[in-house]
């Protein structure tokens, strides 16, 4: 029976306009609405699919953030067995190196056969969490995965390459996989089931012993893209516009 750990996090929800903080070095977190990282959501779905297919035990680990408990209860309603919330000084968000160390420390006691996580996230500045966790735990890592089959102490994984190529490869367990897409889209669970979990399931809160951001990049300045004034609006009727376009193409050597 495979022991699967999904490590996931909440990221800024792009439905709201993003604001930059007063220091100009990051996002203004007071105004942020958070949502589960889409790729992490696929990692959870893949973990649940593996459990349903081959039996297994799924543990989901997420750092504390606004909305993280609702998200964890939802994963419980989907079929996760154990939910862990990592607590610590996370208000300003932690970089991926700090998070990866915390994830590795939290995952280790469960002796996972497989650690699944999203291959990327929209707030990654310093590379994905997966390879770092693999490094700290001394496990192999394969990223951009869109299918997993467990066979004994090995997993057969489908890795996506650019240009529509798929590679099928074998990896020895335990291993860390960066999930690009679950084999099925993340499922919907009725709110009544989630509410039931809120009454019956428990989230295990664990303190992060040390948030060590070493190795990560430091953002010196964050700003909106500055508009360059290179665009020229061509005005006139169709004939005039066409004539001007031809002149521009000729000047550029395209005609």
């Amino acid at each position, binding site marked *: 029976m495979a022991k699967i750990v999904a490590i996931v996090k909440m990221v800024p929800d792009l*439905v709201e306009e993003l604001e930059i903080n007063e220091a100009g070095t990051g996002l203004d977190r007071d105004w942020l609405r958070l949502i589960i990282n889409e790729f992490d959501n696929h990692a959870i779905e893949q973990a649940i699919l593996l459990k349903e297919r081959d039996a297994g035990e799924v543990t989901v680990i997420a750092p504390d953030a606004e909305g993280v408990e609702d998200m964890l209860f939802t994963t419980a309603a989907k079929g996760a067995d154990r939910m862990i919330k990592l607590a610590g000084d996370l208000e300003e968000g932690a970089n991926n190196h700090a998070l990866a160390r915390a994830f590795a420390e939290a995952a280790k006691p469960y002796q996972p056969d497989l650690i699944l996580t999203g291959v990327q996230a929209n707030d990654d500045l310093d590379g994905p969490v997966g390879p770092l966790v693999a490094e700290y735990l001394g496990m192999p890592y394969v990223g951009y995965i869109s299918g997993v089959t467990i066979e004994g102490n090995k997993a057969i994984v489908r890795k996506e390459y650019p240009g529509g190529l798929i590679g099928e490869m074998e990896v020895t367990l335990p291993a860390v996989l960066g999930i690009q897409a679950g084999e099925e889209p993340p499922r*919907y669970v*009725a709110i009544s089931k*989630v509410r039931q979990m809120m009454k019956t399931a428990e989230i295990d809160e664990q303190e992060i012993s040390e948030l060590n951001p070493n190795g990560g990049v430091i953002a010196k300045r964050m700003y909106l893209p500055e508009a360059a004034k290179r665009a020229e609006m061509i005005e006139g009727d169709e004939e005039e516009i066409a004539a001007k376009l031809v002149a521009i193409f000729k000047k550029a050597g395209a005609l």
Partner: protein
Amino acid sequence: MADTVTEAKAGFTTKFYNSLFEVAEGEKIKTCLQCADCSGVCPFGYLMDFPPGRMIAWMRAGILDKMLDTDSVWMCVSCYACTEVCPKNIPLTPGLMTRAKEELLLAGNIPTELQSALEFSQRYGNPLGESPRKRADWTADLDFEVPIMRKAKRPVDVLWFVGDYASYHPRVQKTTKAFAKLLHKLGIDFGILGPEENSDGDSQRLAGERGLFEMLAEKNGKAFSQYEFKEIITTDPHAYNAIKNEYPQLGIEYPVRHYTEFLTERIEEIKPLLKDNGKKKVTYHDPCYLGRANNIYDAPRTLLEAIPGVEIVEMSHTKSTSLCCGGGGGGMWLDGFQWEKGEVRLSDWRVKEAVTSGAEILAVACPYEPPRFEDSTKTVPGAEKIIVNDILELLIGAME
């Protein structure tokens, strides 16, 4: 093992059957004559594996678990056509069909496009996936201020529940602004909830997500309880239906009227404001949740008749036999699914009837309809010149 499975399956039918009695008048299911009028009148009945009549037959045979492996129940647009025609008055739409969708949803048998709308509703309080903070953004380009209750900090006569599509959909916002202008012209003391308003949840309920409906209703109930007002009005028949018929069961009780009722009461004030902009033939589409679900047929026609130059022509399906636009019961979020199943759109069917009626204008009174019918006027032959307008747009048009 086989016996256990058989028992579990038989158990589903029994459990499902018993749950129908919890709906008002639910026991009437026992009196079904198997006349199949429901399945015949259903606009998508011919595409369903389990139209209502067959669902009852298989339930009686104890083998309804087979329904869980099919997905055509999602074609149900909760239009009340079956309920209206049933000679035994069985609550087929709110009972049988809605319960069936609830079971499919619990079993995880749910079309992906519907899933997004439900997730958005849970997360943002609207099925469109828009920012809740932007719910009142439509008010920005009006030349008067629309009071938002939290900022206004005073009692109002009328709380206007704006609704999802009326707040966010670019086409429907035109109708919403028309209503705001009308209220302003009539000097009505009104306010809106703005970002505190959540989806009324009725279509989510009819799409099988009862828990989500309750969550949204509780949020709206909490917002209502913060403010003082005499009544709620809305342009959305779905919100009207929820607040009038469903919220009271959750202890959220407020008087509510659809705008057609509210304005009809003020018709003598409105008439002097209306100019004669020339003759036009208008046909009126009765929305399911104003008409069949709530028996409001006259008020919208009274408003139209008040406009000088308007001649009302009726379509072949009218009043209690009106055809659904296809948006109810989750249909707003299942266009792709419906197309895959049947390559038909109910809105096309309705617009064809509008063409046959000879009308120049197709008048509506529900926010689901302008975008659906306008799409159809682009593809139905002969419908190119038909203008789709909410009654509110026609009223405001006659004032300018």
